[in-house]
């Protein structure tokens, strides 16, 4: 029986594990904490699909067109076609697994509008779509856990992949209970570890998404893709602990963005783009907010208390609880924040990386969203990716080559021992905070070559000292061993941004503000012995 090792238990990991188990494979699903703690539970808005009860005029082709257009023509057409065509079946599958979708009077799944889409096609579950999907998939996986088909490994973190001659044979995990590394072999390994929030410190997402796995794999010969494309959500509120998303629904209900000038309100989005200016795509709104150089406010008070409580109860609660702001009486001070990563591990249409038997799915993989993601397409991609990977793994040859992994384990043990032995009071967090500051500053919404170069110099410096500093061993060992590869990923991201000398989607360069056909392809980056190389995938080698 084929053994599949899935790293990560968010929506993507769950989808892959369930699909593999349904096909009779044996799955080990690894994550430090249970699925309920994954970032997937934060997804609120919806999941896109053109179902039988769609709006008049909508079609799968239109979903495909919107997705490709949103991605500024650098996402693979075939991959996107597969994604959009599967969407209606995925909604059915989710329903049967127990996802509590909001339905209309006829019992059809309700849909809401999301930016960048020609029709209303985001299916949703109240204001907690991601959470309801996680609940359903956890139940479905539980059925297979009962029979032993799926085994969960909690309190375990990815350490490295077991790779030999371009082929993957399993992974080294760090067992937090025994505080030791261990090797797990498998026929295929599927990475489903989410985005890379830690590069930027405070974001709208989870602290568990740190990008370590992508960074580590890069150093192990795995190619990464489109790292420069990072979606900033235009409306978030700053709280003492994180940036919290203020749903697009506020602007959907008529919310107006403004700045104050000489005691007067200036509705800068409406001045620039007319009546529907507040609903422009996320990257444009974020850029316009940045250009004001001022505190921007979002006003919805005119809707009246009753309507606000009825239509935007979560936003009302959130602002009141975390900032003491009553949105029925006051405007919301908003700032753009890092929200989603279009870039990640480069995968082919079957979700395999450039390393045989190593797959990547969900937000850590880069395939469907091109230069910008449409809201509601990432949950879809997380579930679809899991299904596609499972199909491909079913077809793959079994991998029974015996290998000796004692050298890899010994290396890991030594590294962990040196981290544990340190008496230094210096926390890893300090370098992580410096990194976040650098990335926020130099890889912001508006970039230029000088800033990017400065960022690269700074991160290179952190990298050069990361191995020399002795860190506080009372922090989690994972924090210590993940630092260097998080820095490596950050440097790779800045290098990708520097290499794309044009503006496209979420990547805006003030020194090259126009799009250029010469760059109408994905950026690929690889790493070899300390050297990074970027190139454009003009031959679409990943798109088939």
């Amino acid at each position, binding site marked *: 029986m084929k053994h599949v090792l899935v790293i990560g238990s968010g929506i993507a990991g769950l989808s892959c594990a369930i699909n593999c188990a349904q096909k009779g494979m044996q799955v080990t699903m690894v994550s430090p*904490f*249970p699925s*309920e*703690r*994954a*970032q997937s*539970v*934060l997804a609120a808005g919806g999941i896109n699909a053109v179902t039988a009860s769609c709006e008049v005029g909508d079609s799968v082709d239109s979903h495909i067109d919107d997705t490709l257009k949103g991605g500024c023509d650098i996402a693979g057409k075939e991959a996107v076609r597969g994604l959009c065509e599967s969407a209606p079946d995925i909604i059915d599958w989710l*329903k*049967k*697994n*127990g996802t*509590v979708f*909001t*339905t209309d009077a006829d*019992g059809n799944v309700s849909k809401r509008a999301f930016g960048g889409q020609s029709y209303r096609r985001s299916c949703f*579950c*109240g204001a*907690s779509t991601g*959470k*309801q999907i996680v*609940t*359903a998939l956890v*139940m*479905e996986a*539980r*059925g297979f*856990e*009962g029979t032993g088909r799926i085994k*969960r490994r*909690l*309190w375990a973190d990815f350490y490295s992949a077991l790779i030999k001659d371009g082929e993957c044979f399993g992974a080294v995990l760090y067992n*937090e*209970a025994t505080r030791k590394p261990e090797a797990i072999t498998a026929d295929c390994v599927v990475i489903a570890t989410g985005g890379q929030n830690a590069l930027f410190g405070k974001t709208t997402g*989870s*602290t*568990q998404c740190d990008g370590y796995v992508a960074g580590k794999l890069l150093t192990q010969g795995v190619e990464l893709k489109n790292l420069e494309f990072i979606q900033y959500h235009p409306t978030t509120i700053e709280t*003492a*602990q*994180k940036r*919290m998303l203020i749903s697009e629904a506020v602007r959907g209900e008529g919310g107006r963005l403004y700045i104050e000038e000489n005691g007067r309100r200036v509705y800068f989005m409406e001045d620039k783009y007319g009546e529907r200016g507040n609903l422009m795509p996320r990257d444009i709104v974020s850029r316009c907010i940045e250009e004001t150089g001022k505190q921007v406010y979002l006003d919805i008070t005119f809707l009246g208390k009753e309507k606000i409580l009825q239509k935007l109860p979560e936003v009302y609660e*959130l602002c009141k*609880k*975390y*900032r*003491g702001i009553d949105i029925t009486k006051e405007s919301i001070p908003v700032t753009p924040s890092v929200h989603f990563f279009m870039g990640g591990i480069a995968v082919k249409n079957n979700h395999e990386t450039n390393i045989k038997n190593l797959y990547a799915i969900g937000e850590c993989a880069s395939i469907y969203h091109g230069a910008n993601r449409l809201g509601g397409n990432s949950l879809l991609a997380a579930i679809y990716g899991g299904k596609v990977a499972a199909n491909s793994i079913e077809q793959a040859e079994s991998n029974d080559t015996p290998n000796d992994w004692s050298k890899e384990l010994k290396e890991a043990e030594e590294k962990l021992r040196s981290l544990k032995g340190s008496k230094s*009071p210096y*926390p890893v*967090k*300090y370098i992580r*905070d410096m990194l976040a500051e650098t990335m926020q500053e130099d890889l912001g919404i508006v970039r230029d070559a000088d800033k990017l170069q400065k960022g690269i110099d700074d991160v290179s410096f952190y990298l050069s000292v990361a191995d020399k500093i002795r860190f*506080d061993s*009372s*922090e*989690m060992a994972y924090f210590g061993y993940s630092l260097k590869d998080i820095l490596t990923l950050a440097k790779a991201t800045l290098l990708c941004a520097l290499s794309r000398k044009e503006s496209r989607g979420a990547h805006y360069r003030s020194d090259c503000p126009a799009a250029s056909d010469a760059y109408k392809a994905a950026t690929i980056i690889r790493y070899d012995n300390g050297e990074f190389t970027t190139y454009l995938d003009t031959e679409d080698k990943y798109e088939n």
Partner: protein
Amino acid sequence: MRIKILRQMSPVTEPYWQEFEGDFAKDQSVAGMLDELNYKDDLFDVNGDPAPRIQWECSCLQGMCGACAMVINGRPALACEVFLRDIKGDTVVIEPLKKFATISDLVVDRGIIHQNLKKANVYIGEYEGADPKEYDHMYAAGKCLKCGLCLEVCPNYSDGSSFYGAAFANDCFLIASRSKSRKKAITKSYQKNFEQGCSKALSCVDVCPMKIPTLASIAKMNRR
């Protein structure tokens, strides 16, 4: 502000109290405060002794994932949702949840919640379709964080070996209301592992951060 924390280095070492002093904004949450405290240059307690960094669990930092459940001034709660402005007096006492084994400091092993659901095979199997009238209740139950706060406060829950607690009852309702193949078995398991042990103290309802109507789940399951 004085912060008193029940600490424990590992599952097999003895717990001990340690106190810290610090100034924090009133709008800071207990989670944010722990983070700030942890990343002062060197961590020293009130006696000037160096202290290891405080271990605690977090993910969403906005009350949506259940990671940061702990006992704050005697009350089980999510640390990212308790604000210093609401703390009475100027001392915060923080302890790990006590009904679960401590891994280190405020990190506990809540795996038993999942093990019990797995043992009872709480999954849908053959889907029967749902009664639209049940939508609101199912949606509410679907929001359970598996945070364990309801188990912490329950006078009948001890270690999950026989009585499984409110989180279990809610998941049973989610299955029994929609599964063709598992309804009977789940109802039986519910009777054995919940109904027999529940004395309807209902402290689980008050403590639940997601305001899940556990009482309604119990009422519907008891009627089956």
